[in-house]
């Protein structure tokens, strides 16, 4: 029996829809991206209760060494000399938007005195809500 050699077909991968898929992914990432205003790396305290923090909230970050950085939620955070300077920053933010939320991003080992003075500055500036940024408490962490 003689087999007839079929028509030679070109080996093609259909790539026409690849671009469509890729653009869909791009749109997804473009919509979900939120540029971090504060890139300070801190060891956050762990909590079981964690509520979503509104976007564009103002940030006050306190690192382990006591450096304080502030951001109004739009611009990248900048270093301020001490807790006293948080008051003028917060007053400025509150003046432009009285309902602005503040996020306190402090390292868990920071002496409470520093946090106390930052919170006091925010209270004096009449901040409405302060969020204490935290990470998820793990099961192992609960016993500690």
């Amino acid at each position, binding site marked *: 029996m003689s087999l007839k050699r079929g028509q030679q077909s070109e080996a093609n991968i259909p*790539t*026409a829809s*690849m*671009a469509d898929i*890729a*653009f869909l*992914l*791009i749109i997804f*990432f*473009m919509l*979900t*991206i*939120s*540029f*971090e205003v504060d890139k300070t790396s801190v060891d*956050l*305290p762990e*909590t*079981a*209760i*964690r*509520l*979503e*923090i509104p*976007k564009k909230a103002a940030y006050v970050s*306190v690192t382990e060494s006591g450096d304080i950085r502030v951001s109004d939620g739009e611009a990248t955070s900048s270093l301020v000399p001490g807790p006293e300077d948080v008051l003028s920053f917060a007053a400025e933010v509150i003046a432009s938007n009285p309902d602005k939320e503040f*996020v306190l991003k*402090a*390292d*868990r*080992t*920071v*002496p*409470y*005195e*520093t*946090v*106390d*003075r930052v*919170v*006091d500055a*925010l*209270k004096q500036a*009449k*901040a*409405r*809500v*302060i*969020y*204490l*940024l*935290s*990470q*998820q*408490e793990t099961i192992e962490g609960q016993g500690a």
Partner: protein
Amino acid sequence: MRFSKKDVSDEIPTSSMADIAFLLIIYFMITTTFAATRGLDFALPKEDDSPPQVEKEDSVLIEIQRGGQLVVDTTPMKLDEVLEYLKPKLERNPKKPVIIRPSQDSEYGYMVDVFDELRQAEDKIGLPVQNISIPTQREVEQFWF
């Protein structure tokens, strides 16, 4: 003179489109930060609110010492005992004020632990702690002494 006639394709070259698109995807994937955007909220009294009339004696005072040890109304206590201690008091008065007073040289993390524990009261003992306050040092000096 003779022109050589070449076939010109009438298609738009889309083969590199996917490459460009994937480059953009990679850019967005790298710049996307899975940042921690959750935390505990800590509502401050509004400007027009009259300052809460809290008598020191009426409230439960949770002091946090330097090493994280807790002293609740002058009794040393562990963190998981605090809610059990509060339960009968909250049953009598659901608005019982609870004051957290971390020592100035203790760590911030301990304060968050206690605050988190109190916020979980509804899940753990079935009663929420409605009135939690964490006065700052200045407020303590101003109003208590």
